[in-house]
């Protein structure tokens, strides 16, 4: 039986349950969440992040679409306040959008600035982030929201290599990473590469959540809706 961690998405555990297991996201495996734009992929990632924080599992969150403030605002929309977790350092954010020099980021050792067009710098920060989090709790989560923006700003195969290195680092340290990606935003070869990097693939199309692949179980699917509590299956 493969040990799983709680996804935080209502109905997801039931959907992915098998042979007396608990269901959820298989621990220490990599997941790709993809689908068309505006189908709830970021909400999925945020819900997953928040559930982990509630359960005492720290999170390394790499944001490339929203600055920290916007990220906080979108969490608040669903009553997932992250302020305390930023203060107790269990949420480690690498922000590639906000500009420190303009005072947009708080002074904290767990809120770190990087640059969307500098994958090398992002990887250095990921390295120290993983190191910091792992020391406190080897059971942790990590999110990249999203690979789409990274691909848009950089050479595609370079990003595939960076993502591979990212997944290797998080997995080696015992963490469970999720990568968000908007379907068709890069060419087919890149998309197939992305899918081949991960263990689990989840697709959201606005109506249905399809678990296209997951370690230990076959294909599963369920309709979903987005409510004020996030995604509900």
């Amino acid at each position, binding site marked *: 039986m*493969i040990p799983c961690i709680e996804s935080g998405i209502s109905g997801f555990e039931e959907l992915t349950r098998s*042979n007396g297991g608990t269901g959820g996201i298989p621990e*220490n495996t990599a997941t790709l969440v993809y689908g068309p734009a505006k189908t709830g992929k970021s909400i999925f990632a945020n819900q997953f992040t928040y559930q982990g924080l509630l359960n005492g599992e720290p999170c390394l969150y790499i944001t490339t679409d929203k600055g920290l403030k916007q990220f906080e605002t979108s969490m608040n929309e669903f009553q997932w306040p992250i302020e305390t977790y930023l203060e107790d350092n269990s949420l480690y954010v690498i922000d590639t959008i906000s500009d420190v020099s303009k005072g947009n980021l708080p002074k904290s050792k767990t809120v770190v600035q990087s640059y969307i067009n500098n994958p090398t710098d992002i990887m250095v920060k990921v*390295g120290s982030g*993983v190191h910091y989090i792992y020391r406190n709790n080897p059971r942790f989560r990590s999110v990249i929201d999203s690979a789409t923006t990274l691909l848009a700003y950089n050479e595609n*195969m370079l990003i*595939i*290599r960076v993502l*591979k*290195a990212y997944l*290797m*680092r998080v*997995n*080696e340290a015992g963490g469970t990473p999720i990568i968000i990606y908007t379907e068709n935003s890069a060419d*087919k*070869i890149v998309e*197939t*590469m992305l*899918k*081949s990097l991960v263990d689990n*693939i989840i697709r959201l199309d606005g109506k249905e959540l399809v678990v*296209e*692949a997951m*370690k*230990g179980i*076959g294909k599963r699917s369920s309709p979903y809706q987005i409510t004020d509590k996030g995604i509900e299956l």
Partner: protein
Amino acid sequence: MIQTIESGIPGFDQLTVSELAEGGIPEKSTTLIYGPPKTGKSIFCNQFAYQGLLKLEPCLYVTTDQGLKQVQSNMMGFNWLIQSYIQNQTIYIIDGISQLSGAKFDDTNNIKLSSVGNPADMMVKVGIGTRSVYKKSNHFISILDSLNTLFAFNQEQMVIRILKAYLRRIREAGGTGLIAYTEGVTDSDTENELKSLFDNTIRLDGEYIRVESNFEDIEEVKSYESTYIITDKGIVVNGK
């Protein structure tokens, strides 16, 4: 009759029986196993390798997608325990990816670290590894899982050249090679060239397994098709 090796995959050997061969993977041949992502290609490789280990056939295992730790954990999910074969050195592992995780590892007699972005080093280690397993037995299995990461880290034509060199080494030493590749990670020209380098191809699409064997000496091509499922015991070819 063409000599074959038991695949270890229930139903596969029965599927591939013909007047030419007993069924299984043709011995001393090379096979490309390909298909879309997450259709069981790595599971197939591991199942085949494990069957060989059970019969104490040495194995040269080149891993480039997953570090050794991950490979072992994946295999453990199917109850394929390889630790004792690592200890008694029946399996020789070239790990081309673990270094990327930033963790520190040391080489042992039969676990060698390399880097997927450094194909020259990989090939040197394949050379040493081939000699090491060949000394144990001239019936050995060689797994390369997979070409994807090699394509992500190197120019396409470079990967093709490395692959040709790798296949030549395996053939010269009399090994049976199984190489995994995810369909669609290169353009169709490269993909066709890739397929032409192998004696056999196996395609897994999540529902069907399609096997094509090219017996060059007698100019005959055989193909077989069946449905398959992935269970907690690995791949089962169920012949529907």
